[in-house]
Structures are given as C-alpha cells and as structure tokens.
C-alpha cells in the first residue's frame, strides 16, 4: 500500500539508516592501549619466583587443583613453604599498603592441602644428560625436580636414611606436619627421580658420579654444629641443637624430664626450647648473648615461645658447664657487653664480674651451624676450605660440578634453598646443552631478580613483561574494597604444649577461597572485563578464538586511556599505534 506523501514517514521525517561505523574515529589519536601483563611485587619478592597471582586467582574461584598447579610451576614444595616459609612475599604484597597483606603463605598451604596436580613438564631435551644430586634437602629436591621436568634422568644421593634434609630431621612437627612434607615428596618422586639413601658422598664417590653423569649438583647443607671451647662440653646431657632436634624428629627422645637450658638466640635455639617444652621439661630457659631486640630469632617464634612459658635471659655468654658425676647439672654465664667488634665481626666481649648460674639437667647448645666440607677434602672443591660458586650459574671451580643452598650460603631458609636448586637446574640444563645460562635467565628475570621463572622460559607467556613490577600506585585505589587482613586461627599455648600438634590451624576451604579473593592479582589479567565495559567507544575487543588478549580496535579507539585507568591490576598500559 502506498501512503500519500503527507503520511509517509520516509517523507515527513528524515530517517538514518546508516551506521556511525563509517566514521573511523581511530584517526583522532595515536595513543593505544596495550594488554601487557606484569609481575606482582609478591612474586618478585619470592626467591622461588612463585606464580602467586595465578595461584590465588584459581583459589579464589575454588579451584585448588589449578592453584597447586600454579605453585608447582616454580617450586616442588608448596606444602612445606606454605607451612614454614618466612614469606618475604607478604612483606611486599601491594595490599599491605591498603588494609593488610594477603595471607599468601597460608594460601600456598591450602593449595597443597586441597589441590591435586601433576607438575607440568618443561622439556625433554635433557634426556641424554643424566645428573647426580648430592643431598636431599630442599635445595637438592628442587634441583632434582626441575631437572626431571626438563627430561634429565636424575639420581639423588643422601647420607641419611630418609630424604628431606632439615625438613625431615630438624624443623619440628608443630610447624611442619609430617604428612605435608610427605605429600610434597611423593609428588617429586613421581617424576621418576631415584633417591639412594644411606650413602654419604666423599671425594672418591664424587669423582665416580662426576664421571658417570653430565653434571653434579652438591647441596649438602650446613649441618655441622659449631662447638665452642667451653669447659665441660663433654658432660652427659650437653647436646648440640641440631642433634637434639634430630633425636626428637626420630623419636629417640620422647621425654625430657628436668630443667633445660638452651644456649643461643636464633631460630634453632627457639625451636629446641619449644620442643623441650613439649617433651615435658619442668623448666626451659633460653640464654643468649644478644639483648632482646637483637636476637636473630624471628619475632613470631620468640613470642610463641614466651607464650609457651619459656624464659629468656638476654646478654649472657656461657662460661662453663658444671656437672655431678659426669652429668651436667649447672651452667655458669658471664655478662655479655657486646656481641660484635668495631668492624662488625662476631667477637663477644664479657663483663667477667657479672655472672649467672642456672641449674640444668640438659644443656642444648644451639650457637650456629656451618657447612661441612670435610667429606670433599682432597677434591678441587675444598681448595679454599669452602666451596666457591659463580653467583649466577652456581658452577663451582670444578668443571661440571655445581653447588647451592645452605652448603654455599651457610644457614638460610627453605625458599632460598629451593631457589638455588631451581637456578642450578636451569644452569645445568644449559651447560649440558652447551647454551649460555645468562641469556635464559635474563629472559625470565622477575623484576630486578634474582628470582626468575623457569616455567615461562619453556612455556612463554605471551604479552607478559616479567621485568616490570606493578606498584601500589599503579592500582586505582578508589575502586578498592576494604577488607582488612584477618589474623588466623592458632592453638592456645596450653593446647600447643601438650604435644607436637601444628600451631597454626590451616584454613578451611571456605576461608581459603575468601582469603584468596583479597588478592588484587597484580599484573595478571583475570578477565574481569572492566577495560572492555568502560570503553566509551565500544572499541576494546575482548579475547576470542583468535586472540587471547583484550586489544583496541584501531579503527575506532580514540586513545582516551579509560581502559588503562579502570584496570584494577595494572595490566592495561598506554602505548602508541603500531
């Protein structure tokens, strides 16, 4: 039916049938957003380089398998670190500048507890290059784990009757439950790594395995207790700290009646004292050279010990052990006026007139441990009396022999041992293939290093700039919710001291999801769609089958930078038209 002109809408009102897409507004500006993932400060601070944002994002979605898988990218021991790591990550967490850092360590433990995952293989190019590892502490296990992931046949040789180093024979159960370590260990062994226990490697054996393998990694730790020249040292009841802790972990010592005096101000001393308390000692006293604020022990360990009824005496050094019929009964101390000399060297000076006398049925001497190089005497390793390694490649002066962990650095931490093992693994891998390690490391250095990502060296993450670290200032804080860091559950001092139950109560599933949700996922795109939704030009394209990034449609993007401004994790960054 044809309408008269005066009724025909086409005639009486102009009708737009075209689309504004004919206007290529992209010419208005040369600025363009770039989807550039970055590194979170927590990850840059974790010596092992743990992929925390991916792990915590998965956990926040209730997916603990993927969370565990993300931790396993860089470290074989998420359960262990989740329990005992000193968590430098949390110190650098961006949320710390807002309302308290994320409970990263505890969430790492939750991932290990609730997740199941198989470590992702890295390469098979190592197949023809067998590697031997000496020592099965965290450094040795980490090296073995990563080497196996790169295809190397790995055999670990361990002097003790069981694997684990200090994880198995020192760190007390109330901080590291046996099952947690065993679960990690089982996963490591599932990669086909063989561990020969009960074999102590000496120079001869070392030469032998060096000849049979393409490379050797030595990680025999720092477990020789320092012995002071103190009269009465050989009395019965006087024990070096590590020996004591090992006896406890082996259940050789199951009770400790009487009075216990622990000498030393470090974590080993505090662990020894707390273990003694749990073995039923009547009185436990810790005596150290330092004043209270200067003790090397961590604040938390110290305050836990105080709560458990352990007494501390600060500023005293042992003078002599007194005994009754070859058994220790008392210790005499002299007042310590300073611990270090003017050059900062350890050299305590005493005020001889001042003295302290304590009754003691047991004296535990935890005044430090050092690496023991004596087994390798007569080898090129021992030329200087200590092993010397290149800090980047961990190569020793002996061709094909690498070393790391406490054995090189002296007593440090689990995560630093893991980091050394990982570094050695990639370095050895490059060495066996005749490639320079420095290039490999450089490509995946996290922030300024020294942490790097072994996973992304083999599985590059497109569009990720590992060196740039997201700062708190890069996040739009106006858009952040407030949800303060909560303190987590712990056993009461009374519950703690009745046995070796774990002091920190692990998170339950619901809490773990909730706590993981506090993470900002700095530098990691979570697909939240904010950049997409806020684009006033409808010209930011979301990921699709062809592209896994958000990216600007060059035809229409006006370069306004709104997408970058609304990204809550600093991923979207402004650049220029390519």
């Amino acid at each position, binding site marked *: 039916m044809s309408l008269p002109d005066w009724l025909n809408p086409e005639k009486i009102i*102009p*009708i*737009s*049938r*075209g*689309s*504004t*897409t*004919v*206007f*290529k*507004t992209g010419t*208005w*500006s040369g600025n363009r957003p770039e989807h550039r*993932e970055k590194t979170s400060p927590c990850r840059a601070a974790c010596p092992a380089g743990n992929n925390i944002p*991916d792990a915590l*994002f998965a956990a926040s979605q209730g997916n603990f398998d993927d969370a565990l898988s993300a931790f396993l990218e860089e470290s074989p021991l998420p359960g262990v670190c989740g329990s005992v790591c000193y968590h430098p990550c949390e110190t650098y967490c961006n949320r710390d500048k807002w309302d308290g850092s994320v409970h990263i360590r505890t969430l790492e433990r939750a991932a290990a507890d609730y997740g199941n995952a198989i470590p992702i293989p890295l390469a098979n190019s190592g197949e023809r290059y067998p590697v031997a590892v000496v020592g099965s502490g965290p450094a040795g296990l980490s090296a073995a784990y990563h080497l196996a992931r790169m295809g190397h046949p790995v055999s670990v040789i361990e002097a003790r009757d069981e694997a684990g180093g200090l994880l198995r024979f020192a760190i007390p159960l109330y901080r590291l439950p046996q099952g947690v370590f065993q679960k990690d260990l089982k996963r490591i062994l599932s990669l086909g790594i063989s561990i020969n226990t009960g074999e102590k490697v000496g120079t001869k054996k070392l030469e032998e395995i060096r000849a049979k393998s393409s490379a050797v990694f030595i990680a025999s730790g720092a477990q020789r207790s320092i012995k002071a020249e103190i009269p009465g040292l050989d009395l019965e009841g006087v024990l070096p700290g590590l020996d004591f802790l090992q006896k406890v972990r082996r259940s050789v010592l199951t009770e400790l009646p009487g009075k216990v005096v622990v000498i030393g101000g470090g974590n080993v001393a505090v662990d020894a004292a707390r273990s003694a308390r749990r073995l039923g000692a009547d009185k436990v006293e810790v005596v150290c050279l330092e004043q209270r604020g200067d003790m090397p022990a961590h604040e938390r360990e110290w305050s836990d010990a105080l709560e458990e009824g352990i007494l501390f005496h600060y500023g005293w050094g042992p003078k002599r052990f007194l005994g009754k019929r070859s058994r220790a009964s008392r210790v005499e101390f002299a007042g310590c006026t300073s611990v270090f000399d003017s050059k900062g060297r350890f050299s305590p000076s005493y005020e001889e007139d001042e003295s302290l006398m304590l009754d003691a049925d047991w004296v535990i001497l935890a005044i430090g441990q050092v690496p023991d190089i004596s087994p390798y005497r007569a080898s090129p390793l021992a030329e200087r009396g200590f092993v010397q390694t290149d800090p980047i490649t961990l190569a020793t002066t002996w061709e094909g022999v690498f070393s790391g962990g406490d054995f090189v650095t002296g007593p440090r931490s689990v995560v630093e041992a893991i980091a050394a093992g990982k570094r050695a693994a990639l370095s050895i891998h490059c060495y066996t293939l005749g490639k320079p390690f420095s290039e490999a490391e450089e490509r995946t250095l996290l922030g300024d290093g020294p942490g790097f990502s072994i996973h992304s060296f083999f599985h590059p993450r497109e569009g990720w700039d590992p060196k740039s670290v997201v700062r708190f200032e890069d996040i*739009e804080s*106006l*858009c952040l919710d*407030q949800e303060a860091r909560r303190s987590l559950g712990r056993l009461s001092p009374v519950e703690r001291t009745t046995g070796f139950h774990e002091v920190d109560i692990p998170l339950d599933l619901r809490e773990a999801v909730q706590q993981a949700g506090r993470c900002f996922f700095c530098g*990691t*795109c*979570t*697909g939240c*769609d*904010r950049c997409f*939704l*806020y*684009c*006033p*030009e*409808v*010209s930011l394209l*979301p*990921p*699709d*089958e062809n592209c*896994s990034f*958000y990216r600007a*449609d060059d*035809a*229409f993007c*006006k*370069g*306004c*930078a*709104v997408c*970058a*401004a*609304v990204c809550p994790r600093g991923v979207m960054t402004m650049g220029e038209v390519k």
Partner: protein
Amino acid sequence: MVVKAQSRPAEVLRPGHAGCPGCGHAMGMRMVLRALGNRAVVVVVPSCVAVISGPYPYAALNVPMFHSAFEIAAPTAAGISQALKIQGKDDIPVLAFAGDGGTFDIGLQSLSGAADRNEDFIYVCMDNEAYMNTGIQVSSATPRYAWTGTSPMGNTRRKKHIMEIMAAHRIPYAATACIGFADDLTAKVKKAKEMRGTRFLHLLSPCPTGWKMEQHLSPKAAVAAVETNIFPLYEIFGGSEYVINYRSKGLPVETYLSLQGRYRHLRPEDVKSIQAETDRNWEELKRRV
C-alpha cells in the same frame, strides 16, 4: 593467563560516534543500553546524547531511536509507548535519554506531566552538570562553585534536587546511578525494565571536556562522587520508600573536587562549605531511609 570466553550481552551502542575521547555519557549510554537489550525503542533529545547517537543519516544505536525536540523527551517516550500498546507490542520497553539541561530546565514541565500521568517509560537523565554540547553553559544541575562558560567565577546557585522533584510525583521507581558503579547501574536498569509506569534514573556521567579533567578520569570522578557522598547511590520506591544501595567510604570532598579543573579556583572556605552541604544532604538522605 588465557581468559575464558564469557557470554556477554549484545552491544546496542556502535563505535564511530562523535563523543569526546573518554566521554562519560558514552560509557553511561553503553551500560544502560546493554542492560536494556536490543528489543527496545529509544528516544533522544538535543544534548550530548544526541551528538553521540549520530548525525543524519547515520545512527550509533542499534535499536529504533526517535530524535525528538529538546523539551519533550518524556511525552515523546509516553506517546511511543502508548502507540506500541495499541499495536499489541507492550513488551517493548521505551527509554528516553535526556541531558541535565533537557531534564532539570527545559523539559521539566513535560516530564512532570508525563510522570503525573504515570506514563509507561524509563527516563534516564544523563547528568554531566551543564550544557556541554553547546559549549559548557550553566544549567540548574550545575553544582555550586563549579566553573562553566556562563559562571566564570563559579556557579552561585545550588544544584537542583531532581530526585526529590521526581519523588514528589510518587512514581513507582526513581534511582541514582553512576558509571563508576557499573554493576549497580546495570541492576537498576534491569529492575526498572521489569516495572511499569514512569521510572526515572538520575545518572551522573562525568564529562572530561566540561569538567576540565584528563580524558581517562570519568570513571574515577564518578567513583569519587559516590565515595565522598556528593552523589549517593539510592532508590526511591513510590516516592517515599528510600533505599541506600552503597555504603560509601565517606572520603573528604577534596578527593572528588581535586580531580576537576572546574573547581580549581576554590578557596578553602568554599571546599568547607561544599563539605558541609554534602554532609547535610547525606544526613537528610539517611533520615529518609
């Protein structure tokens, strides 16, 4: 991380429109239209919305759109809505976009008439607090002290309380929303869509050009407006039942004002008086809940 494919609502706004870079209106329109869906009729009247909706013969909206006269957004929407009902298409929502000038000033009496008759449409006032597309002139939505081309020393009048005016009509639904809180905005549009009668949305959408801000700051300014209680997010049902939707951080008004060049000339006592007025309004709002 590979981002999983997700299902997204259809986009109604098209690229290529003539909004300034970083335009808060374009963001607001986009969010409103996504929530409304592509089975709808939209009315626009002269305002930045009309600039964005496209020059003849091109349209930026992917739905039938009627470009009406400045002062009659509401009755136009009412008429279209009635016509659709006569045609038996009463499931198609009609939504009118008007600017603050077209709502607070020029279209107020026709809006009042339509609201009084409780005509069936959604009215979205896109408030950028001045006549922007004609070159930044003061409107009765311009806040006190704000610079515009016609208030070079700062506006001397206070912003008209449009929500109270609409509440006085006892319409079924009136709500404030802003582009800084996309989920809240989306939920309100969806809620309005499910209701019948006159539904009013007062949408604050910062204007980088007229507010003299950097281009990327519209969403941030909108968040700041809410977090300082300058623009609280709330709903009014039936003209009397008030619900506050978001508990703000209650930040000092400087957080909001300092983002914008239009407030650069403020003296400390001006800021104080803005703070005092904001606090008073906030207390008043809480009293009504």
